[in-house]
């Protein structure tokens, strides 16, 4: 581009370029009317640009901060995180944000829409909204005693599902127990996960039946009370009045598998042990044949006492251990682990008493352990763990009493 020198000053010159712009440049000994190609143009003061740049940077920073804050707020409060479908007969879907606040409530079916007609959501609290909806359902006749409330939770992860499930179950159980006996079911929308039940207190009247996906808690909950340990008869009542005179090893093993129970065959359970049904000779298992039995392992005594084994831990009857060696007594074992009757464990004697073993671990009677006497007592083993009776071990092979095994 060519420039004509229009005006010269000591410190600068005014130039006219071919586009009609008048510019100032360094006066390199120019003369008016001279045409130049490479002037050193004077730069415009940068204050305006700098101020503008600072302003733009400030605005950009503020916008970024605002965007950052708004994004967090938006994600926490305005985006749907969890969906809960409350189904009575009317079905209503609640959309929750990440904070658990109710964003919207909409009827899923016709009854649900009717239920929400005229409904003014008083709060964003999920529990409050649920209570309000249940109240409306009760007032509108959708929910009555014996009814069922299903909460179908579509949560982003298991933790949220568990949190909401437990919370809803607890709150609604407490809320409804004073008015209705209503079944509350909480299911997960996609994965079918379940919420641990909130076991109602015993004195709750009327009881609120809780079902989780159709599984009754009473059937599989290990806390199921065992046969009346709290109401067991006193130990002295279980001991026969005239116990047979014997020492712990008063009878040596003779290889005989068949022994007489002092209380008689089959019906010799202690009469003073009420509730121990099955003492009348209805043995669920009966081995009349010869049993292999190690010389060191025998229940070769006459047990007429109560033998209750409840295993919740590692229980090993090894060697010459004996529980109530005077087997006319009470034998109660409680453990939550593995129970092993191995080696020379002996419950020797004729058991005519109650023998109840309930273990939640693995029970193994390895080797040739045997309780091969004539038991006329009650023997109930309830194992929730692996129960293995290896070898020729047998319990109460020739029991004339009640023998009940419940293995899970």
């Amino acid at each position, binding site marked *: 581009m060519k420039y004509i020198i229009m005006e010269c000053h000591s410190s600068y010159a005014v130039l006219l370029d071919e586009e009609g712009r008048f510019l100032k440049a360094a006066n*390199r000994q120019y003369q008016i009317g*001279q045409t130049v190609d490479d002037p050193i143009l004077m730069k*415009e003061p940068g204050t305006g640009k700098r101020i503008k740049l600072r302003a733009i940077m400030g605005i950009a920073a503020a916008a970024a901060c605002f965007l950052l804050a708004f994004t967090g707020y938006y994600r926490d409060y305005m985006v749907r995180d969890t969906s809960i479908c409350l189904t009575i007969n009317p079905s209503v879907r609640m959309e929750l944000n990440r904070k658990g606040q109710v964003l919207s409530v909409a009827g899923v079916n016709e009854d649900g829409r009717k239920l929400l007609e005229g409904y003014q959501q008083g709060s964003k609290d999920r529990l409050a909204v649920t209570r309000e909806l249940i109240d409306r359902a009760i007032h509108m006749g959708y929910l009555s005693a014996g009814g069922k409330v299903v909460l179908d939770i579509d949560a982003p992860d298991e933790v949220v599902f568990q949190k909401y499930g437990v919370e809803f179950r607890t709150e609604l159980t407490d809320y409804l127990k004073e008015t209705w006996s209503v079944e509350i079911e909480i299911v997960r929308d996609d994965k079918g996960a379940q919420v641990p039940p909130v076991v109602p207190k015993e004195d709750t009247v009327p009881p609120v039946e809780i079902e989780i996906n159709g599984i009754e808690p009473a059937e599989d909950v290990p806390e199921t009370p065992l046969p009346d340990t709290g109401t067991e008869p006193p130990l002295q009542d279980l001991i026969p009045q005239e116990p047979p005179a014997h020492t712990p090893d008063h009878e040596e093993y003779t290889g005989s598998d068949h022994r007489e129970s002092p209380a008689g065959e089959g019906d010799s359970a202690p009469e003073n042990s009420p509730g121990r049904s099955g003492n009348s000779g209805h043995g669920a298992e009966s081995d009349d044949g010869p049993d292999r039995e190690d010389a060191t392992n025998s229940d070769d005594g006459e047990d007429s006492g109560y033998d209750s084994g409840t295993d919740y831990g590692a229980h090993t009857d090894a060697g010459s251990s004996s529980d109530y060696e005077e087997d006319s007594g009470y034998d109660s074992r409680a453990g939550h682990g593995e129970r092993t009757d191995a080696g020379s464990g002996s419950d020797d004697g004729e058991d005519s008493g109650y023998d109840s073993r309930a273990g939640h671990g693995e029970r193994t009677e390895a080797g040739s352990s045997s309780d091969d006497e004539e038991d006329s007592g009650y023997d109930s083993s309830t194992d929730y763990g692996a129960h293995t009776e290896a070898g020729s071990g047998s319990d109460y092979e020739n029991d004339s009493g009640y023998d009940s095994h419940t293995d899970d």
Partner: protein
Amino acid sequence: MNEEHVLVSQVYEAKEDMEAADRLIGTYLPFIKSETAKYLKRPLVEENDDELSIAMIAFHEAIRGYAKGRGAFLPFASMLIKSRLTDHMRREKRHRGHLSLDMPTGEERGADTLGMQLSAKENEQEAFISRDATRAEIEELAVKLADFGVSFTDVAENCPRQRRTLHACHKVMEYAKGNPGLLEEFVLTRRFPAVRLSRECHVEKKTLERHRKYLVALLVICTNGYEIIRGHLKHVLKGGADR
């Protein structure tokens, strides 16, 4: 301290008045020379050095860009002079060893084509005559503009920076060139017809008023007697504004 205050007040006066700026530069010419010599690490051989011109224009930029919040003026001017000299040195270094056909070849060694050099020698006389004619035209234009109370420096100050505004002004110039009556009336009355130009050229009146001095210069150039300058602006007058 008092001297600093005086200097600052002079600088602020020079911001508004280019004559005052020129006077201030003249006053502080030893300072400018000293800073240039310090940068070059050698005494100035002659006052024709490009570096001195660059330092003076940098001082001028310092006057226009100075604000009280930026500290003392002289350190600010010194910093600006050094920056501009550094820019100049870098530019010179970039072009060192590279010869362009478009570069003026009068003072250069025979790197350019000989024909161009010969052509330049042949046209030297013609160029001198042309420069004289151009100078006479420019001086006449300056006198004419002085009648309107405008100098070239004012025009340079008032020249639009943005290309869009520049094109709007060129549109006005095109319209005025096509309407001799308007130009005659303008010269006679010495009144800038902002309303009419705004209406006819569809340019905001505010824009026209803001660049009034520049437009006055363009309109005067469009009147009779400034053929060389109009020839220099042939791209604009041929419709280059529409590009």
